[in-house]
């Protein structure tokens, strides 16, 4: 069981010269493994993460999740795969502004009552028990990212794909979020973390550095 990326390439075409965002990238994330990809903005990290999550069709190569070739599946089956096996965390949190904390978390939940219990338990663990009915607008940035993290974990995913999860956080909050991500990996989950934030480099695990779509 693993999330395997093999020879992944993606080029973006615009009015200017073509931009090669991914150039024959391969990596594998096994359960319990934290893979960090560092690199400067525009080096292709987010493209890698979106492709790994089944959201961006690569030009070449393939992504395999537990023996399923992701892009051989239909769009809707890929969505189902994401819902069941992948958790996403983004730098901008992307919480729905009109839903309170518990409803934002439950938004991603697939099952009914047991998800609600798990959501409350996770929020408690992430020190958000007092914030269940607060709207995102009334939360601090650290709290928002923790809510986003709980939302990513609500379905007990096998893999966590995190795009600059600490990018908007201060040192304390960044450390706290990283601690949860490491804990997820320690508990047997696979993590692909892409970031230009050097604070993420302290975590144990496999680390790649990316430049112009290639690992260096």
């Amino acid at each position, binding site marked *: 069981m693993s999330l395997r990326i093999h020879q992944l390439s993606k080029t973006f075409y615009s009015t200017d010269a073509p931009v090669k965002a991914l150039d024959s990238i391969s990596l594998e994330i096994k359960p319990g493994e934290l893979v960090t990809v560092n690199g400067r903005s525009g080096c292709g990290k987010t493209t890698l993460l979106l492709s790994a999550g089944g959201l961006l069709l690569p030009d070449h190569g393939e992504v395999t999740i537990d023996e399923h070739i992701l892009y051989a599946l239909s769009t809707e089956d890929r969505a189902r795969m994401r819902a069941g096996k992948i958790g996403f965390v983004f730098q901008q949190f992307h919480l729905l502004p009109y*839903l309170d904390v518990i409803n934002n978390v439950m938004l991603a939940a697939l099952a009914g009552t047991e998800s609600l219990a798990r959501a409350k338990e996770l929020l408690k663990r992430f020190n958000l028990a007092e914030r269940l009915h607060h709207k995102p607008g009334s939360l601090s940035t650290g709290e928002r990212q923790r809510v986003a993290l709980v939302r990513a974990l609500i379905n007990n995913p096998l893999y966590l794909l995190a795009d600059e999860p600490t990018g908007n956080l201060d040192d304390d909050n960044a450390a706290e979020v990283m601690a949860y991500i490491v804990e997820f990996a320690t508990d047997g989950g696979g993590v692909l973390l892409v970031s230009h934030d050097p604070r993420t480099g302290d975590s144990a695990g496999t680390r790649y550095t990316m430049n112009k779509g290639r690992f260096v």
Partner: protein
Amino acid sequence: MKRGIMKHWNIVVYEIKHRRLGFCAGLLSLTAATAGALIIVLQLRAHDLSTENIVIETEKNLRSEMTQLENRYRRIMRDMGHNVLIMNKEQDMAEFRRLGHPDTYMDYDDVWKLAHGDLTTLNHLLPVLQKRIFWEEQETGIMLSGISGQVPVFTKPEFLTEDHQYRSPIVRRIPDGMANLGAEIAVALNLRPGETITLAGREFVINRIHARRGSDDDFTVSIPLQDAQEILGKENRINGIFALECVCSLDDLGKIHTEVEAILPHAKVYEFSSLIAPRAKVRQQAAEAHRRVVASVLQQRDEMRRDKERRAAVLLPLLFSGAALWIMLTIFANVRERRGEIGILRALGFLRREILAIFLLKALLMGVIGGFAGCALGLYGGIVWSGVAITKANVLTLLDPVMPVAALLAAPALACLASVIPALAAAHIDPAKILAED
């Protein structure tokens, strides 16, 4: 594993609460379109109801006028006097016309049989014996007319006194030994009332000279019936019974025949159609005029309705297409505003059809609320502005249960149809593009 519909419903409801303005804008257009449509339809129905009321009122007025006209004609007919002549069934009508009087006879008792019979159509009976003769004493031709007093019709006690005399006789009895003269004969022979004349060897004092009538009456000498019978050798015989002031119309003639012939099987009835036909003709013309008035009212109302229909045919599509366009723009704006949200929902594993459902549910909710609000406003406004009196009966006539049901179904359908394109656009937003923008 699936997300329940409640989750989508939660998203819809909370989002509407969060972004009220856009939702209200769409809602307003739907409410206006639904209300407008109902008002237009109610106006058409009110027009039909008014037309119906106007026609009923016009017909009522015309019926009343017709009744008055009928009564006037009855009075005129009564005033015209003799309008039915009963004579022997064997009478040759060509001969009757040639001579100006019947030349067949009946018993004088026949008039009494009629008087005691079951008569409803005749009010006054006047037995006569007439014959054109040569007045030897004056060497001139005259119409000799023997008349008695009116014979009472016993089935019409309202005309009679207790001793069976007419309260107001139409024709007065000629006293014995007296005669009435027509105007022409009196002038020709230079005769005056009070003078004595000799007729067939009998002397009569002139009782009265009639005013000029322009008919055979002007050459008639009327004497008591018995004298005429003796002069003509027709004792106890008559050759006609005038029925005066008969309550007849063209439609009643059949009834008169039936009644008279039931009592006197050897008699027949001759009607002076020249008097009755014009009356019937006038009445037919009045009825025709009546029909023309109603037809004219109906035509006018019909033109007005067509005019209203033409306006409705322009307004209704305008209202609905305007509302649809406005909803589409509103939902498009909403999709644009929620691109980030759609991106993360897709990243969380929401299917395209779930995104589609979220926007269509919103449109459906807009349609249901807009439909109800528009229905309430439209029914209220439509009735208030219908121009008909607000009575329970009118309101019940105006309101067709199909209308609100149709409006309540049409509004959500319109909202959903108008939202299909923006909802599909939302469902096909590329989440990678949105998330990469961060």
